[in-house]
């Protein structure tokens, strides 16, 4: 096994220097997700703003306790999704989920997934897929809650 196939340099970079880390105010929804296998956890906040094209992700802030994969994933997720319409974020979520379920056979589009393509190798390691998905699941959960707050009166 080549460690570098799992731990690509992009992942290690995000792990050592996570983007958008820390919990910020104000926020529309906050969730705490746990990986019961290892006890890793992420507390994640989402702030939305309205636009003509529907709600947009204004900010994602988080406090992640976990391995390199889960921390890097939270960093990449926030890079990718902040500033995008929620609908696009959800599409990215689905793309990333499909990549993680691809058992190493996925051919991710870098134009779509950006740095998240570095996680393709993780899909070969069933024990680590949850690590990569933890922040994404938390983001989706928080966003759905925040959307409830933002529903037009």
């Amino acid at each position: 096994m080549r460690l570098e196939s799992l731990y690509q340099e992009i992942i290690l970079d995000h792990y050592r220097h996570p983007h958008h880390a820390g919990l910020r105010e104000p926020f529309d929804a906050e969730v705490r997700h746990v990986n019961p296998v290892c006890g890793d956890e992420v507390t994640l906040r989402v702030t939305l703003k309205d636009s003509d094209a529907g709600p947009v992700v204004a900010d994602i802030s988080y406090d992640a306790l976990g391995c390199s994969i889960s921390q890097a994933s939270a960093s990449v997720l926030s890079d990718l999704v902040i500033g995008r319409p929620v609908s696009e974020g959800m599409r990215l979520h689905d793309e990333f989920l499909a990549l993680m379920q691809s058992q190493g056979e996925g051919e991710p589009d870098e134009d779509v997934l950006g740095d998240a393509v570095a996680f393709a190798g993780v899909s070969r390691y069933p024990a680590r897929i949850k690590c990569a998905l933890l922040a994404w699941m938390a983001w989706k959960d928080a966003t759905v809650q925040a959307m409830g707050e933002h529903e037009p009166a």
Partner: protein
Amino acid sequence: MTLDVARIRKDFPILERTVHDGVPLIYLDSANTSQKPRQVLDAMADFYERHNANIHRATHQLGEEATQAYEGARARLAAFIGAAEPAEVVFAKNISEAINLVAYAMGNATAAGHRGRFALGPGDEIVISEMEHHSNIVPWQLLCQRTGATLRWFGVTADGRLDTSGIDGLITERTKLVALAHQSNVLGTVNPIRALADRVHAAGALLLVDAAQSVPQMPVDVAALGADFLGFTGHKMCGPTGIGVLWGRRELLEEMPPFLGGGEMIETVWMERSTYAPPPHKFEAGTMPIAQAVGLAAAADYLSEVGRDAIAEHEHGLVAHALAALAGLDGLRILGPAEPVDRGAAVSFTVEGVHPHDVSQVLDSRGIAVRAGHHCAWPLHRAMGVQASTRASFYLYNTHEEVDALAAGIAEAQRFFGTGGR
């Protein structure tokens, strides 16, 4: 008596295999599940190939042979742990089921309005400890929820020993049952069960011992230990999965109501009610894992033949070596006793700046199998102030070279993740 590791390793076919395209396997995850010697695999294959039938009910030669094999396995396991008689040995799926058996039987005694030591109510207390495996925590939480009893627990000292400083306030006339690990699956700590048993009995309570980690590794004698119940699991002691043991003192098993109802556990059945078989069969509903019981007895025979004192001594040497080797690594913190005194062969640790998952992934790339996470002991990790740890656990087939490989692998993880080390 010393142990010939090279000869022992030949009994375990899996130790010859490689992983990740040619890296020799270094298996340091025996506290999770042990590997199985050929003697155990052969005993199970022989049962299926030559004697397979259901037990206690088949009126033919194979049925008699199968019954003899199953009940013979019970007798050998009774001897293995110093039980007064085979009837004190109840087969269960694993130790989780063994502990649940007692917890649910107590719940059933309560629901049926029994008086006496198995019935619980508000004001009664169950005492456990913070170093327990989830399987010795959750069943008691559930029992307390069902009965209104209160769950209390011993804490853990900073160096990973049972904190008995508050024992006078903890074990009282309100205590009905105390359930403790003989040996912690995370810290390796061996608890002073004998001394605690006297305190528990002086308070009129019962003592249940979770011996999942101790029975595989050292001679355990239930009478000498002073326990009332003791559970262990087959797959951690060179036996198959799907089989474990609840040992209980005969009078307690007689008095305790059943847990699972079904075939073979009855004496008479009417539409309105039933009476039950005497122990141990009262607690063995349905067709049991027969070949697994045969395999477990073969495992007990195997450990006895190697010598349980010799196994304990070998593991003591390995854990002393591991503690010394790991202590030499910067940024490494060992959870649990730093000295190999009253300590089994599991070493859990954290590496500063490298998450346990990442440590274990680097070790795996070098063929070294360990466990990462909270090891089903989340409250203990919280008490030790860590979120998770990496655990290496040794058994009779491990070598000192493998301990060195572990230390080198951890240093490589530190290098890979850029957190120093030397």
